[in-house]
């Protein structure tokens, strides 16, 4: 069921890169929100309130979420569903705007030395933590050290951002300036400085979190709700609008749907297409992209799938549009390689049509590979992602057309992580991968020796391209290399890339300002009531 949440999914956008930034995604449990650069269209109940109408201050809203929080400490939380909530309480030195650009947040400005060995941040003046203390250079140094693993002793439970382990030292230049020195220079690391800034040596972050974000933590009841109130001292003039936001935890999307029907939830970000169409009269339905690569990922070293022709045959046998129609009511973007369209700069739309649905061609390729009578393989799917489970069911039917018999094996998310992702003991799996706002992040698992290369994909040409891309500091060159890598993945049919799933959000029509981001967050600071503030808690 959709419930669940994945804990772990880690990956979350800017923060975790993780062993590989992988992770899955999923739909209804939602995962990344979309980005502004991809299509964000609105179809709503009455009028286009989201862009017009007078914003008023005050009021309170209830936001539905379907997974419980795994920690209130921003450096300990791993679940994507937790980070999307904590985003409203904490901020980093920089943050992503709706177009995917990194803009200064707690830092007023930053400079990166040309070789990428030094990052210098100038702090914004007069920013206060929710407990009233001013944010100092010491707090920033403490926070950065805490999430990069430089604190000794290391605090229990803190998840170290592996990309930040490149940091060798953090120096206080003056009261307002902090310089970060990289052991291994890199110009791509700014995206990781979204890491939350917290007060130095504050001991109750687990239970009474204190940050600098637009909302202050008020209370948390496991399995029930997290309540946050307006931060009156927020440094951005005019924000936030709302006085109070309650994140309400539902058992699953079905239970949440009942509450939407009853009108007790104002914003719910993980609708299925079916639910969206039922709610279109009472809610404004907004559509963004989940910024995920949903694919039938193949183990390139296993059985018949080790043969490139077999993999290509599966690509030809997959009617991707039909999949999208079936599982997502036609909402979703067909993709052709391991990149989603909102990464505009690196996205190659041509690859979408590289494999046109063609069962004849598929059968020919199978025959060439010696499987004229088809073969049997197993698709392992994490059972908590209804969306992926349904996709797999459609694929099974499609592959039957070319005589290939696919079986579905559902396993728990925990087993998926250990058997499939780490153990690489599988033939094929349907999940969604997301990525950081760092161009290399989404592709680097395809290096032959990458620890998170759970596809066992090996291509020395790709490895060389990566080496070149990492070496260069020129954006255009990087772009060329990364696009070339995507093309190779498509040609090798490393996996059957299906879609960048749509993200459907139900928003109370009296609300405006809901914004999609290319990272996985629910930004409540920009949400406001139109005309008259209401109270819902």
């Amino acid at each position, binding site marked *: 069921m959709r419930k669940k949440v994945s804990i*772990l999914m880690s990956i979350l956008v800017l923060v975790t890169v*993780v062993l590989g930034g992988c992770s899955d995604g999923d739909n209804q449990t939602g995962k990344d929100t979309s980005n502004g650069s991809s299509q964000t269209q609105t179809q709503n109940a009455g009028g286009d309130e989201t862009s017009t109408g007078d914003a008023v201050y005050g009021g309170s809203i209830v936001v539905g979420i379907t997974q419980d929080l795994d920690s209130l400490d921003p450096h300990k939380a791993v679940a994507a569903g937790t980070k999307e909530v904590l985003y409203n309480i904490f901020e980093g030195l920089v943050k992503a705007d709706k177009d995917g650009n990194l803009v200064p947040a707690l830092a007023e400005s930053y400079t990166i030395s040309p070789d990428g060995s030094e990052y210098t941040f100038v702090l914004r003046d007069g920013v206060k933590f929710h407990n009233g203390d001013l944010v100092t250079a010491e707090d920033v140094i403490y926070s950065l050290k805490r999430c990069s693993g430089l604190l000794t002793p290391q605090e229990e439970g803190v998840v170290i951002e592996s990309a930040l382990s490149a940091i060798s030292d953090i120096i206080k230049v003056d009261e307002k300036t902090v310089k970060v020195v990289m052991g291994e220079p890199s110009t791509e690391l700014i995206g990781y400085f979204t890491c939350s800034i917290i007060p130095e040596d504050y001991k109750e972050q687990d239970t009474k979190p204190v940050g600098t974000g637009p909302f202050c933590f008020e209370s948390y009841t*496991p*399995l029930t709700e997290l309540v946050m109130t307006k931060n009156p001292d927020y440094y951005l003039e005019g924000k936030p609008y709302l006085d109070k936001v309650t994140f309400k935890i539902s*058992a699953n999307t079905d*239970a949440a749907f009942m509450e939407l*029907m*009853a009108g007790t939830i104002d914003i719910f970000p993980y609708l299925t297409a079916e639910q969206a169409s039922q709610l279109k009269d009472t809610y404004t339905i907004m559509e963004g992209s989940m910024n995920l690569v949903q694919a039938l990922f193949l183990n390139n070293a296993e059985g018949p799938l080790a043969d490139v022709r077999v993999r290509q045959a599966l690509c030809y046998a997959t009617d991707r549009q039909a999949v999208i129609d079936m599982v997502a009511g036609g909402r979703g973007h067909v993709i052709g390689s391991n990149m989603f369209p909102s990464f505009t700069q690196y996205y190659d739309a041509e690859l979408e049509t590289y494999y046109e649905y063609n069962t004849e061609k598929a059968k020919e390729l199978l025959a060439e590979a010696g499987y004229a009578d088809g073969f049997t393989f197993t698709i392992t799917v994490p059972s908590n992602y209804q969306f992926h489970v349904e996709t797999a069911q459609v694929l099974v039917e499609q592959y039957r057309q070319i005589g290939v018999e696919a079986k579905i094996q559902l396993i728990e998310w*925990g087993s998926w992580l250990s058997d499939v992702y780490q153990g690489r003991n599988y033939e094929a799996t349907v999940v969604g991968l997301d990525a950081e706002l760092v161009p290399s992040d989404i592709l680097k698992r395809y290096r032959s020796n990458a620890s998170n290369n759970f596809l066992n994909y090996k291509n020395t040409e790709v490895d060389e391209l990566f080496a070149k891309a990492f070496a260069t500091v020129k954006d255009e060159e990087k772009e060329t290399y990364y696009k070339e890598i995507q093309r190779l993945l498509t040609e090798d049919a490393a996996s059957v890339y299906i879609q960048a799933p749509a993200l459907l959000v139900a928003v109370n029509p009296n609300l405006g300002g809901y914004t999609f981001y290319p990272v996985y967050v629910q930004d409540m600071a920009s949400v406001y009531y139109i005309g008259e503030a209401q109270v819902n808690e």
Partner: protein
Amino acid sequence: MKYLVKKLITLIITLLLVSCAAFIAFQVIPGDSVTLALGTDFTEEAAEQMREELGLNRSIPARFADWMAGAVRGDFGTSSQYKQPVSQLIADRLPVTIWLAVLSMLMITVISVPLGILAAKSSGGILDRMITLITQITMAIPPFFLGIILTLVCGILLSWFTPGKYVAPDKDFSAFLHYMIFPAMAVSIPKIAMVVKFLRGSVLRQLSLDYVRTARSKGNKESAVLVRHVLKNALIPVVTFLAMVTADVLAGSIIIEQVFNLPGLGRLLVVSISNRDFAVVQAIILYIAFVVVLINFLVDLLYRWLDPRVE
């Protein structure tokens, strides 16, 4: 007295066995909680460190001894998911489940006793047949679906309550009770059917006994016979049956809590199972085991007290 001691020993043995089983069972499961907690951040070192923090790197008997020692003191360790003491997590959720059980038991008793007697009194008549048919149908509906139908009809169509608008008892008790009525209904309806059926049988059995004939022949009115003689005897088994239903009510609430989005023990259990948060699962199992065994023990005592003929 001897009986009491024997029962007590059984009780303790049962609890020991359950806790042993609950502990061992969760040691053999594939996909441990450390892997899950680390997710895609998994590295051998991180896992090793976490195991050490959680004390998972020691031998099974040593951990069992520790766990039992803790359990006796009410300390079930720390939840890997919530990083909170398990006992705290359970204590926070317990009131919801207890209230659900109490309200359900209340409904069951208040509704099923009159219905059961009515059915027995009009045995074979149209009323009896109706009651029996309805009870049988309600027993045939899967409880979760009953819950969904109730939400749909009472919540969405009739607006008697707002689905999902659960209020914590310490915030607004009457609003809490108002909401709880509906999940309690979902839990109790199938059980009402069971009790009605059982009570009806019990009354009928008594009615066929000699003493009833004697009472009747003495010229007592039918209703007087029923109330003064039959009911007293017929209710004895029903009381114990009701007590046993309590265990069922607890189980029923596991599913109903999901349907009505109640933050009770059942939801914690299901969430913990899917998160493989075994410290919590073990504690809840032990907890429910304790309650169930205790109830059985009390039922035994009650039964002996009500009906001293039982050996």
